[in-house]
């Protein structure tokens, strides 16, 4: 909204400057500033592709290009340690522009873009930018976010991970792909979000409690995947990215094309990923390969300055192999597997093959958005989102039944949203919205197995209002939200004869949030955010019935669950000392009453496959408290040191014991050196980084089958440069992960019972921008 309004206003403001002219004596002048701090950036370069000439900015960030003819130009802006900015100008008159640069290392993206994004927000957020995405897109979406403080991943082996924000994940973290809440089977820890990171310009995590504009229930935080607008440039542009990884001999290829045609602006992106068996330091992780084929298309049409429509479609298509040695029949098998040096079924040969157990998932997203600007103060946006998710999970089964899925779910969702924005004046804004969501989930009976999650249909109606006012150094925000969730569940009875039973639930949730940002000094900013959010129990918590394979436990839903009620306070301070030192501290405390969790029962459930531990969904009162700290120091312009620390502690207050599956505390440090830009080589940098993950000691021994793994240290390094050719740019880099080939297991990886985590890996990346 914000950015659109800005773009719209810029058109209006620039229009008078773009009137006619004849000769070759035009100039483009302007000022280069740091996007985060607004401080002018000296010694940046401006390069005009068409004339192959350029200029540098002076100590005040000013630059001027003279002697340009009337015509169309592509400008490139470079600054050490920054992402290259490109701009298209149709020059008809002397033109003045202002360029904001942002730092390109993913670490400082977090620092600087944080600043940028929170300009009109009072809740803390972190962002991964486009260059970092292109560099790491052979990883899963969730693994990219791990770079941020306070964010980790819960994994089921090498190919499946989902984000954990301040200790919460799954149903409690909303993932918004292009503004639409990702549907699909988000309840499962072994169900990764079905999103291709390449479609995003940036991926941010909102950690505060104030994310009221998004569908309810996001107690933990919100992950936003935001594609950028198509640049106003009538020429065909695009890029090709390729990544090779040694661990798993993986190939990742993405191509993207875009053009701002007269009839409409369009963009197409396609990705293919083929990865084979990964390896732990001492053995292959047999059956851990992956295939992924994704497609996205974006169409934008500006009918007039007051009306714009956008159409977006994406297809995500994946097949993921699950470690063969982690497939077990009962608790005895699990105990057998835990004691082994090398997992069962480990082959001594590498393979691209994908056998059972495996998952296949297809996810379609269609989005249609219509933006209406009524006048300078009012705008209205209507959005439709449709999603179809088809998930099949295949197990090792008898009598050629392995080709039949053991779990087969088809989910579709329809979403309609209307958002009205009112700017009273420059400093006050009211945003209101209504959201309607219908989700339908159906089990395909082809499995021949009673479903773990029943068929259901869920209706959600939500409405919210957020008011914001900026007064001198203070920006404050007040918001309220109401959600009504109606659930129709159709189950097949556990006892004989099998009968169909229907259940109905209606939940009412309200959420309140307030935030304040106080700019104490230009360099020091304080944010306080308070929120009270209710989340209604999801179908899996109410109606799960059956064996959860990976953990060898029988999980039983609880039909009497009530709403979870969370109160969270987040206090953060950003301090910037003379552009050399940046310190960000964020502390949070969250109290959740009626926190829904899986309680191990004392009894064992006797089945024909042996006795299984029984887990039932229960409610308790819980607290989560933590600290995220980040320090970035640049003693001289070419050197940057970064240190990050995340601390978190979760407790079950009623039962006086720690919460399980809380992320371990961790410490990250990096050193990077950027070389001066040369004639042909730009953005040349080397870096070394290390991450230490502490042992999760805040846990009682009886809360898990094995004690949490010990702490571990991972060493990484990166070297990269960009070659500038006439109209194209070639980006090259090589990076290494776990270079010491450390043998380790991670507490949040469910496969730690069966195998070691990944061994060393080198990524080679090539990217071509044109």
């Amino acid at each position, binding site marked *: 909204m914000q950015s659109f309004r800005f773009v719209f206003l810029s058109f209006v403001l620039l229009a008078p400057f773009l009137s006619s002219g004849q000769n070759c004596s035009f100039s483009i002048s302007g000022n280069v500033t740091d996007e985060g701090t607004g401080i002018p950036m000296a010694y940046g370069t401006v390069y005009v592709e068409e004339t192959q000439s350029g200029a540098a900015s002076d100590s005040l960030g000013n630059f001027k290009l003279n002697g340009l003819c009337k015509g169309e130009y592509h400008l490139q802006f470079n600054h050490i340690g920054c992402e290259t900015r490109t701009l298209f100008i149709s020059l008809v008159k002397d033109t003045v522009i202002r360029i904001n640069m942002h730092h390109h290392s993913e670490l400082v993206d977090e620092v600087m873009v944080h600043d940028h994004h929170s300009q009109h927000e009072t809740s803390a957020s972190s962002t991964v930018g486009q260059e970092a995405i292109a560099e790491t897109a052979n990883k899963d979406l969730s693994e990219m976010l791990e770079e941020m403080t306070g964010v980790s991943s819960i994994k089921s082996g090498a190919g499946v991970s989902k984000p954990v924000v301040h200790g919460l994940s799954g149903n409690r973290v909303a993932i918004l792909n292009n503004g639409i809440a990702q549907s699909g089977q988000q309840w499962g820890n072994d169900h990764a979000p079905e999103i291709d990171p390449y479609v995003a310009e940036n991926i941010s995590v909102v950690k505060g409690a104030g994310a009221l504009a998004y569908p309810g229930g996001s107690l933990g935080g919100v992950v936003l995947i935001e594609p950028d607008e198509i640049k106003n440039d009538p020429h065909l542009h695009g890029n090709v990215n390729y990544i090779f990884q040694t661990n798993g001999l993986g190939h990742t290829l993405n191509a993207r094309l875009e053009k701002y045609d007269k009839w409409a602006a369009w963009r197409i992106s396609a990705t293919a990923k083929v990865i084979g068996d990964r390896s732990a330091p001492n053995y292959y992780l047999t059956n851990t390969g992956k295939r992924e084929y994704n497609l996205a298309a974006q169409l934008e049409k500006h009918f007039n300055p007051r009306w714009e429509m956008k159409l977006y479609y994406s297809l995500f298509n994946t097949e993921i192999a699950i470690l063969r040695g982690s497939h077990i029949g009962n608790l005895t*098998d699990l105990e057998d597997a835990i004691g082994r040096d090398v997992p069962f079924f480990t082959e001594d040969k590498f393979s691209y093959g994908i056998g059972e157990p495996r998952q296949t998932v297809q996810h379609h997203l269609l989005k249609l958005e219509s933006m209406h600007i009524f006048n300078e103060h009012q705008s209205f946006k*209507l959005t439709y989102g449709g999603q179809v998710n088809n998930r099949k999970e295949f197990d090792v089964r008898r009598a050629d039944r392995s080709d039949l899925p053991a779990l087969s779910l088809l989910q579709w969702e329809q979403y309609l949203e209307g958002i009205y924005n009112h700017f009273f004046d420059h400093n006050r804004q009211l945003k209101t919205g209504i959201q309607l969501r*219908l989700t339908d989930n159906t089990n395909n009976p082809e499995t021949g197995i009673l479903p773990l999650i029943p068929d259901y249909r869920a209706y959600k109606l939500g409405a919210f209002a957020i008011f914001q006012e900026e007064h001198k150094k203070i920006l404050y925000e007040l918001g309220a939200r109401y959600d009504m969730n109606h659930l129709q569940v*159709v189950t097949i009875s556990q006892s004989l004869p099998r009968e169909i039973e229907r259940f109905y639930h209606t939940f009412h949730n309200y959420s309140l949030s307030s935030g304040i940002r106080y700019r104490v000094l230009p360099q020091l900013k304080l944010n306080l955010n308070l929120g009270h959010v209710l989340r209604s129990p999801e179908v899996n918590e109410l109606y799960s019935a059956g064996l959860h394979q990976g953990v060898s436990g029988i999980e039983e839903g609880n039909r009497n669950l009530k709403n979870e009620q969370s109160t969270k306070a987040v206090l953060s301070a950003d301090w910037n000392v003379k552009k050399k030192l940046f310190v960000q501290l964020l502390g949070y405390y969250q109290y959740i009453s009626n926190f829904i969790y899986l309680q191990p029962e004392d009894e064992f459930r006797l089945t*024909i496959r042996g006795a299984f531990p029984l887990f039932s969904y229960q409610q308790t009162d819980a607290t989560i408290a933590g600290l995220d700290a980040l320090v970035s120091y640049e003693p001289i312009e070419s050197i940057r040191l970064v240190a990050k620390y995340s601390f978190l502690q979760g407790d079950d207050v009623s039962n006086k014991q720690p919460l399980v599956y809380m992320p371990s505390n961790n410490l990250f440090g990096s050193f990077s050196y950027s070389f001066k830009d040369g004639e042909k080589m730009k953005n040349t940098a080397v870096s070394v980084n290390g991450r230490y993950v502490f042992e999760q000691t805040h846990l009682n021994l009886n809360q898990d089958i094995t004690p949490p793994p010990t702490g571990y240290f991972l060493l990484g390094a990166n070297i990269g440069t960009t070659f500038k050719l006439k109209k194209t740019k070639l980006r090259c880099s090589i990076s290494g992960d776990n270079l010491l080939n450390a043998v380790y297991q991670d507490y949040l990886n469910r496969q730690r019972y069966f195998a070691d985590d990944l061994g060393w890996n080198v990524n080679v990346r090539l990217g071509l921008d044109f």
Partner: protein
Amino acid sequence: MVFSFNYLFNIMKNTKNLLWALPLFSVLLFTACEKEDPIILNEEELITTLIYTLTPEGGGTPIEFRFEDLDGDGGNAPVITNGTLTANTTYNGVVSLLNATESPAISISVEVAAEAEEHQFFYEFSTMSFSGGFDYADADENGNPVGLQTTFASGTPLTSTLTITLRHEPNKSASGVSDGDITNAGGETDIQVTFDVTVQ
């Protein structure tokens, strides 16, 4: 409330541009009806019943050990029938697996026999002397035991538990596995049931 008036006014003014949403809205309304009934699926792979029948060599009344759980993992608890054997008798054992939710019951043992190389039953006794009297009486194509057919010499009066385990895709060539030692077998457990055995 000035803004809300403006809001409505402006929406009215722009109604034309918003017409595209109408069909979508009606789709939403149209689907807002009762969820249809699921198909009650055919649990063809389900094993409800294990019967271990021991027939005295040279004739006599067969003894039946039976584990039956008709409604699967949830619902009612399984029904277990234990047996009493006569001392100093050699028995021929046959294990039979059924899906008794179907009528007539489907034999799952046939599936196991068809994939004999990928399956093995293990018989574990809590009393050591019982183990000595036990032996496999069948083999797959590679000459490794399957355990659908067994022999058991009861010996002196004692009591023991007997745990019968069926492993899918065990490593039959691992140490001790073909002698009936489950320790290094690996694979997944398809069946694990425990009976009380009395010899008198």
